[in-house]
């Protein structure tokens, strides 16, 4: 398979992720959308790595996954706390931090 298929797929995934972040209200879904974007980039890294026969890209993928996992652990903990306090995960309701 040619490389551009992978690129197209990853761009699509990324755009879906961006739209998800922008349009959804549920914080958990936003989170998942971010994961989607990260994975789109991961996919791109793996395909280029294989295409160029350079392992550096795959090392980066592992890197990204580790960071993403750590982020999810922290992010979900925050979300759970937010939910306990306000009984919602709707980001539009969570607007206490304004002027």
């Amino acid at each position: 398979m040619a490389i551009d298929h992978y690129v197209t797929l990853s761009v699509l995934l990324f755009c879906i992720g961006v739209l998800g972040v922008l349009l959804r209200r549920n914080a958990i879904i936003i989170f998942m959308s971010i994961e989607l974007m990260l994975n789109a980039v991961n996919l791109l890294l793996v395909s280029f790595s294989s295409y160029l026969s350079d392992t550096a890209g795959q090392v980066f993928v592992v890197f990204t996954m580790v960071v993403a996992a750590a982020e999810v652990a922290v992010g979900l903990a925050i979300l759970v706390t937010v939910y306990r306090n306000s009984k919602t995960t709707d980001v539009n309701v969570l607007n206490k931090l304004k002027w």
Partner: protein
Amino acid sequence: MMSLVCLVPLMPLLGAALLGLFGKKLTKNTAGIIGSGVILAAFIISLISFFNLKAAKPEIINLFTWIKAGDFKADFSFQIDELSSLFMLIITGIGFLIHVYSTAYMHEDEGHNRYFAYLNLFVFFMLLLVMGSNYLLMFVGWEGVGLCSYLLIGFWFKNDAYNNAAKKAFIMNRIGDLGFILGIILLFITFGSINYTDVFQSANKFASGETAIICITLLLFVGAMGKSAQIPLYTWLPDAMAGPTPVSALIHAATMVTAGIYMIARSNILFSMAPFTMEVIAIVGLVTALFAATIGLVQNDIKKVLAYSTVSQLGYMFLGLGVGAYTGAVFHVTTHAFFKALLFLGAGSVIHGMSGDQDIRNMGGLKKKMPVTYITFLLGTIAISGIPPFSGFFSKDEILANVYAHNKFYWLLAVIGAMMTAFYMFRLLFLTFFGEFRGTDHQAHHLHESPKAMTIPLIILSVLSVIGGFMGIPEVLHGHHFLKEYLAPIFSGSQIVAMANHLTHETEYMLIGIAILTAAVSIYYAYDLFAKKATIPAAENEELKPIHKLVYHKYWVDELYEKVITKPYNWISDISYRFVELRFIDAIVNGTGTLVNRTAIALRYIQTGSIGFYIFAMTIGIALILLLTLI
């Protein structure tokens, strides 16, 4: 051996530090001993180094690199040669006597210990000035003595008039210093170095009368005008009498005002290459000498007379420098240090006896009550009047002879100035020590000879004033000019100018004769007027004749400066404050603050707290950044 010399400036600095830091815990006697002791130590070391001096080559002691930036390099190093050695002896020697004298003079003063700290610091800076091996180090000393003069003139700072005198001295000097520092900068630009040795060596490459050299020397001379009180920057010196009398002696005899002479003598090679500047110096010196002498004729304050006499004598020194008589000028600095210190300390002794009164109209007849003061003062007066074989005669004669060779008209004016010197000095002497006592009964009852700590320095100085001239007897009197021989290496580079002044023996005899005759006539005239006829200068409220009034009020120069410089300056400052400062500078500064504040207030509304909006803004932002980097 030579590294011992580093202790010379260190001793007074140590003294100043000790007295300054622990002055409040020390008794007056301890402070006096420390203050005088460190100067004595410095004097002894100066003497040792003076006798160990090796001829022909200046000794340079490099302590450390002080400033280094690009091509510019200034070392903290001392240059010990004939000229600096001589000045070190004058500063520490005369300085020591003045310190000893001060222990008695200032004993009742509550600021006694503070006074000695300042005095030590003064000596330290002056030593730095003469010992430094480059112009920048000289400038440090130059500024330092300016600071110390400010501290000491305003020593009795509770009196506003004294504070104003201190400020005046400081500001006048600052004007001169501006010229001096510009001169040093130009010097560096021209020669690429500020070390004396480098500058004087590469000076040969320039032609005589080169514009750069003329500019440098003129700027340096502006500095000398301020420090050595020449027209038009002289008015601070008479006002500097506000300080304690020994301070006046120190400023006038051993330090500060001789700095200008030292600087020009030090840079004699540069100045010799700028005939135009030399002429300017000669004229300024001559005009100052005459001008100040006329003011001295009618002053009634014992210290003011001496102050104008200093200005006048400094004028003679500059006149000497201007005609290339460098040795003569340095010679006159030396003898002047002896007799002017003597005269000031003598005046201090009189003031001490008079319970603080300085007006010679209230004195008279002090001869019997204060015999030591009288005799020493008389010797000093004879010395300054130029009667042989007292010291002032030889040095003044040497300058006058050189002036005669240079320009006969200058000489004539200089002789008239010398006549006036003899007249006002003897007027002072007769009014103070002869006739009947004119003060109050209380003062008459209190009159007494000063303590030993004051009279012994007077006696030593009077001996020096009498015999000091023998270090430079002119060839025509079959003497040996030790000083000329001694200073020859310093002035060898500029000998061409000095050589031009050669007179026949007959002419020199005639000049000497005229000098003695004119002095004798003035003295007789003064004797006739003030001792025989016992004329007393007019009281303060009496109406004077117009010319007398003009001179008595010092030609209204201070008032002129007030009108021409101070008033417009204040006016400009006021305008600048009201328009430039408030409307412009303040507006910019405050405007910046207000702008940030307003912007923040406006942007605050973007912070809605809506996460969706934040993310949207972030995404747009990232997209924009990516887009911009792609472009």
